[in-house]
């Protein structure tokens, strides 16, 4: 990749100067008109000929054995065409499938799609019906008789870890620091990361603070419910239309669960109404497929909002204990964390990522992190925007703030002193390359917001930082040069937030053409090379990288064509700002040469296929001003500024959008969002009325500061952007509340009853 090396230097040296024509501009997104006119087709909008409807019956119990399922009455209802249960899926065995942002055990995935002998949470899918209308299917669901033996349930991570807690899996033996335990328990795994000498580190400290934190289960909260439509054709080939973050991932999961070769499944990714990590694992797709097999008709299965809350991936509730030591100079001497995350019904919480992130913003010379993955009777957790990191940052950044308050240190200065930088070793081992933690803090330091003193009663200002790895993974695109000089780009990354345009802009930049001259399409699994999921903040980085490679490929071919036409050696032709320059003043603009391509030889089709290392981690620092009503505990956000190292902002509007959206999800998590359960394990607030995501009336404008520390691992210096902004808000809010009314919140959400409780407790 010598071209990369060359461009790397270019990007690095022009981090501020911006040598780019397209990158850094704000073109209207290519799919924009379809999305403001209602023409864009999302998963639920597909309507193939002969469509019938499916409904999933879900468990009313949090934990129960399924003794029998009687479907006879449901089948007898006129209009019902098929009923399926776990038996209609393949039993795939205990194999691990990597989904891109976390792996799944196929046996557990299959059991999560339709429960076999046991339901592990209320909302667990048990059976599915296909009928002529959705209403008939719903009625039929009510006619299925499931005989349950109700078992005691356990919902809370601490309770689940107690000996004597109800066991979810009789065959789950803790992986205890690499050793299998001899007694079953709900703790799937206990691991440890360590660096330096923890006791010595704490001994050197002038101040050591240790605190406990608890965070509630929260949901990704995408507005579009899950959906899947499938047609199992007579030739054994299956077409699946669905809203997913990864068409290829769905293809693989469906093939495994319904037992067909992978190439017999074609997944057509529809427009997707939000995912945030929650639309990676399959729920409905295999069900729609087997219902279609049984009925010979295309079958559409939709979730309603309660299904989404009760049946799909929340992010874990957690218990975290943090201990941090600081010396007289304000340098961290040691850090220790005990972290237990709820995995839901099956193992697999994002505890690993949480543990790797908790201390990552700082240089921790002596550190120890113990992580626990714990099963509870709640829906199987899924990835949610920087999975695991927000819980961790809430705990750590609150302790950091308390230390700063006690030692009278400026919280930004403290961060600058202790910031992770190039060469800092994370507690779990890796050493940072060039990263932008310091720059993200400095950006806040020099912001108008920070420089403007906050005045008024019951008001406080809080800051917090966050780190997320981002990831690379595999992407492939192809690009065809059209005779009018436009380029059609086929990519395989579902576009959740304008990524078509971000990718097209990188192709355009490389070719020296306008963003509007690229026509991007998201292809299905038969139309484009393999692509990993849209997740891990990887698409603008990795698929953009593939587009860059495709553009280079096009350039090579066009240089060859120009040379052929001019009858010179290709080495005599160069590309400059979108034109091809030959000897003796010979020149083709991109459009001129494009017009000749098909008249003079084979079509020009560029391909880019990458699996890049060096995605480059992202750091963010946020500052928030709040006012707390001391009589009700309600927190009002007055002002919010988020700074983030984004590497290079390809389309600044959508970079700002990611930061703003992530910050607001973090605000929701911090202030009001939570799964509220009754003693029987029923979620009492499975609606958007009582699961309170922020509305626009709860918020001010969210100011953003884009910091650009180009990523040496990408030709244009791109870093992933999407995930890290969700991490700092809960801690920043907690720190602001502490300043406003003098109470330290250690539990999420910091809802009015909790804040008021602390205020009243402090008074008395």
């Amino acid at each position: 990749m010598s071209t990369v090396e060359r461009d790397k230097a270019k990007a690095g040296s022009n981090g501020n100067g911006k040598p780019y024509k397209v990158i850094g501009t704000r073109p209207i997104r290519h799919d924009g008109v379809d999305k403001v006119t209602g023409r864009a087709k999302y998963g639920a909008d597909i309507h193939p000929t002969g469509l019938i409807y499916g409904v999933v019956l879900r468990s009313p119990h949090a934990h129960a054995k399924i003794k029998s399922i009687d479907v006879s009455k449901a089948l007898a209802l006129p209009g019902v065409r098929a009923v399926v249960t776990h038996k209609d899926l393949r039993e795939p065995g205990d194999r691990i499938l990597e989904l891109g942002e976390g792996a799944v055990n196929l046996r557990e995935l299959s059991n999560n799609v339709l429960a076999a002998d046991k339901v592990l949470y209320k909302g667990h899918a048990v059976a599915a019906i296909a009928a002529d209308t959705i209403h008939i299917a719903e009625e039929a669901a009510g006619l299925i008789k499931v005989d349950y033996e109700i078992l005691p349930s356990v919902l809370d991570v601490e309770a689940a870890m107690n000996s004597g807690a109800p066991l979810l899996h009789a065959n789950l033996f803790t992986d205890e620091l690499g050793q299998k335990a001899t007694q079953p328990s709900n703790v799937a795994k206990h691991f440890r990361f360590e660096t330096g000498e923890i006791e010595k580190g704490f001994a050197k400290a002038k101040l050591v603070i240790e605190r406990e934190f608890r965070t509630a289960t929260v949901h990704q909260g995408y507005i579009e419910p899950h959906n899947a439509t499938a047609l199992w054709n007579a030739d054994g080939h299956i077409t699946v239309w669905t809203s997913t973050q990864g068409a290829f991932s769905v293809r693989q999961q469906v093939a495994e669960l319904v037992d067909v070769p992978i190439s017999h499944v074609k997944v057509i990714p529809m427009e997707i109404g939000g995912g945030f990590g929650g639309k990676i694992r399959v729920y409905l797709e295999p069900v729609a497929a087997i219902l279609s097999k049984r009925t010979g008709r295309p079958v559409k299965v939709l979730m309603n909002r309660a299904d989404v809350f009760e049946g799909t991936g929340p992010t874990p509730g957690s218990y975290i204990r943090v201990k941090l030591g600081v010396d007289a100079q304000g340098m961290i001497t040691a850090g220790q964390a005990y972290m237990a995350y709820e995995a839901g019904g099956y193992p697999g919480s994002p505890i690993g990522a949480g543990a790797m992130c908790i201390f990552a913003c700082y240089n921790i010379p002596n550190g120890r992190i113990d992580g626990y993955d714990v099963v509870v009777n709640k829906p199987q957790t899924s990835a949610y925007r920087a999975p695991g990191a927000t819980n961790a940052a809430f705990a750590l950044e609150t302790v950091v703030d308390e230390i700063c308050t006690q030692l009278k240190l400026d919280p930004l200065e403290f961060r600058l002193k202790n910031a992770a930088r190039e060469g800092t070793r994370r507690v779990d081992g890796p050493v940072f390359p060039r990263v932008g933690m310091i720059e993200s803090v400095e950006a806040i330091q020099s912001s108008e917001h920070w420089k403007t003193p906050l005045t008024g009663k019951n008001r406080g200002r809080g800051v917090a930082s966050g780190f997320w790895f981002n990831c690379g993974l595999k992407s492939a695109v192809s690009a065809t040069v059209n005779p009018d000089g436009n380029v059609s780009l086929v990519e395989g990354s579902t576009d959740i937030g304008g990524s078509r345009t971000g990718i097209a802009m990188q192709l355009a930049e490389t070719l020296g053409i306008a963003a509007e001259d690229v026509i991007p399409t998201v292809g299905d699994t038969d139309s484009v090379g393999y692509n990993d999921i849209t997740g891990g903040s990887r698409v603008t980085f990795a698929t953009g990288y593939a587009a860059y490679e495709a553009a280079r490929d096009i350039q090579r071919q066009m240089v060859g064509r120009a040379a052929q036409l001019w009858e010179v050696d290709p080495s005599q032709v160069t590309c400059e700002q979108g034109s091809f320059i030959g000897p003796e003043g010979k020149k083709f603009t991109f459009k001129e040469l494009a017009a000749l391509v098909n008249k003079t030889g084979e079509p020009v089709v560029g391909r880019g296929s990458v699996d890049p290392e060096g995605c480059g981690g992202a750091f963010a620092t946020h500052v928030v001003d709040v006012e707390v009503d001391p009589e009700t505990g309600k927190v009002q956000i007055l002002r919010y500024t988020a700074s983030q190292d984004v590497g290079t902002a390809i389309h600044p509007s959508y970079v700002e959008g990611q930061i703003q959206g992530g910050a607001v999800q973090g605000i929701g998590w911090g202030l009001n969002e939570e799964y509220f359960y009754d003693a029987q394990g029923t979620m009492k607030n499975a609606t958007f009325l009582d699961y309170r995501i922020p509305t626009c009336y709860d918020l001010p404008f969210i100011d953003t500061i884009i910091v650009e520390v180009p990523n040496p691992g990408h030709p244009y210096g791109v870093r992933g952007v999407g995930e890290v902004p969700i991490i700092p808000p809960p801690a920043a809010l907690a720190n602001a509340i502490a300043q406003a009314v003098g109470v330290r919140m250690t539990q999420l959400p910091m809802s009015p009853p909790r804040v008021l409780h602390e205020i009243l407790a402090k008074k008395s």
Partner: protein
Amino acid sequence: MRDFEYEAPASIAEAVQVLGRHNGAARPLAGGTDLIDQIRVGRHQPGVVVDIKKIPELNVLELSAAGLRLGAAVPCYKVYGDPKISAAYAALADSAQIIGGIQIQSRASIGGNLCNSGPAADSTPSLIALEAIAVIAGPAGKREVAVENFCTGPGKNVLQPGEFLVELKFPARPPHSGSHYRRFIPRNEMDIAVVGVGASVVLDEKGEKFVSARIGLGAVGPIPYFVQEAGQRLAGQPVSEATIEKAAQAARDMARPIDDMRGTKEFRLHVTGVLTRRVIEEAVKRARQ
């Protein structure tokens, strides 16, 4: 959704007949913003949905010297959209503009909010404060019930099978009166009240003494409460922090809150006092204007 029939009678007599014919299996539909969802989730399973919006009397919205007549099907936006009604019956307008979002207010009616009889209904405390009378039609003709006696339990009320609410009648507002409704919610909109307080006060000419006051409380018991004791503690007393605090204490004493997903008992009790005080203060301010 479960199957049901739909009828849309054009007169009160016809509606009484239709409802009577189905013997309790029929459910009146006004704005539908509660009912349609309740049918969807199976909480109500009516055989017939009776759309009452085509009956002229249920669409009356009339302000006169005698007071206010508010037809049971009049959507919220028409209430707060009328500046004269909003000025005179401010608590009612306060309620109307925070029930759901704008889209809900296009359809939802105050009458429906009352008949749904949720303990946290945003309009009921205002109706209590403003002395509303529920006019009910049924097989035995019309009858009237003071609003504070309308709800009998969560989702339950005095309506008998075959009966439905026709309108709400409000007495004329006395001079030097003011009213206000406020609720506590965790977000700033789109929430169900964790505590709701409606208050109406009448002051003397100088605006220094309470002549009378009525306080309605929501979301702190199985039904919305009329806190008579609070009014009694205010009547004849000077407008002062101390008197208002006594009324707030009366509200706290009457509250019987529960712990649920919207708030804790501790929280609701405390906030009942805080909100009662703030609502009375605002009502006083309005009365003085």
